[in-house]
């Protein structure tokens, strides 16, 4: 089982994801340079950060990196792709996931813990979680205000594509618990096929006890369990 962490110019959580997969979970992990047009991995991580400074719109320029063509092919072949924060934004810009990100409702960048409710635990990324489980995971973003057309939202809900929603510590999805104004308190969605996940919160930041929380582990553990079951390789 091999993980690949894509490095775009301006990625800054690449090393963090790499560290967690390699040193915390002991999995073979490689960096994939944005100019690379081939790789041999089982799961791709599009990490957080500010690819190309996020200078036009978050993720807008990165989606044209040579590597993204291959990421699209990989995902079409069923390979697992997880985009975290900026990685999520890139997936949206690339059209691998529906919708777009707006500025946070508060305008400000926000970095703090949030609670997520697992809405769908039948995905490669959440199979180790319980449905309705509440996870405490930090966010750090200025543009995480998820938006899509009403029809798209309906479809997302109907298909179980909404994987995580912002909630309070008791698991209630409320307006107060929504840190950025996201539609339907959406914190993470998956594609129709179920192999591409985008989420704003950072599971790699809470996968070790010393950092004050381990709720992020369940996502990595789910991916590992899924891949261990010998599911298809992209």
């Amino acid at each position: 089982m091999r993980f690949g962490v894509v490095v775009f110019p301006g990625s800054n959580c690449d090393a963090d994801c790499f560290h967690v997969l390699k040193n915390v979970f002991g999995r073979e992990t490689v960096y994939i340079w944005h100019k690379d047009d081939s790789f041999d991995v089982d799961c791709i991580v599009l990490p957080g950060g500010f690819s190309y400074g996020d200078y036009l719109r978050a993720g807008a320029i990165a989606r044209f990196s040579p590597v993204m063509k291959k990421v699209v092919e990989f995902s079409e072949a069923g390979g697992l792709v997880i985009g975290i924060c900026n990685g999520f934004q890139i997936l949206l810009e690339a059209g691998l996931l529906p919708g777009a990100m707006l500025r946070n409702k508060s305008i400000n960048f926000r970095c703090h813990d949030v609670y997520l409710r697992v809405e769908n635990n039948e995905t490669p990324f959440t199979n180790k979680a319980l449905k309705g489980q509440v996870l405490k995971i930090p966010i750090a973003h200025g543009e995480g205000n998820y938006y899509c057309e009403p029809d798209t939202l309906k479809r997302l809900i109907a298909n179980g594509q909404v994987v995580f929603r912002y909630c309070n510590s008791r698991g209630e999805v409320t307006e107060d618990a929504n840190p950025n104004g996201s539609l339907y308190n959406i914190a993470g969605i998956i594609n129709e096929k179920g192999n591409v996940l985008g989420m704003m919160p950072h599971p790699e930041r809470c996968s070790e006890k010393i950092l004050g929380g381990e709720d992020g582990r369940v996502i990595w553990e789910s991916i590992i369990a899924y891949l261990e079951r010998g599911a298809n390789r992209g």
Partner: protein
Amino acid sequence: MAIARVIVELKPGVLDPQGEAIKNSLHALGYEEVKKVRVGKFITLEVEGNDLKEIEERVKEMADKLLANVVIEKFSVQVEG
């Protein structure tokens, strides 16, 4: 050399948090008459070439591909020699 100006705006109906924030600040400064604020981008390109028609086509392509995200934004292009 031609100058192309691209205006990128949020589609009507898409929430504009930045516009809201500006409106509130304007109210706080006493400009109560401002009822709505929308913030878009104004992108100026210097483009080589003489055929303004063709340039406009190309810039529209650029806007469609990169400069605007058509899920949430619309754009207009204007070119002058």
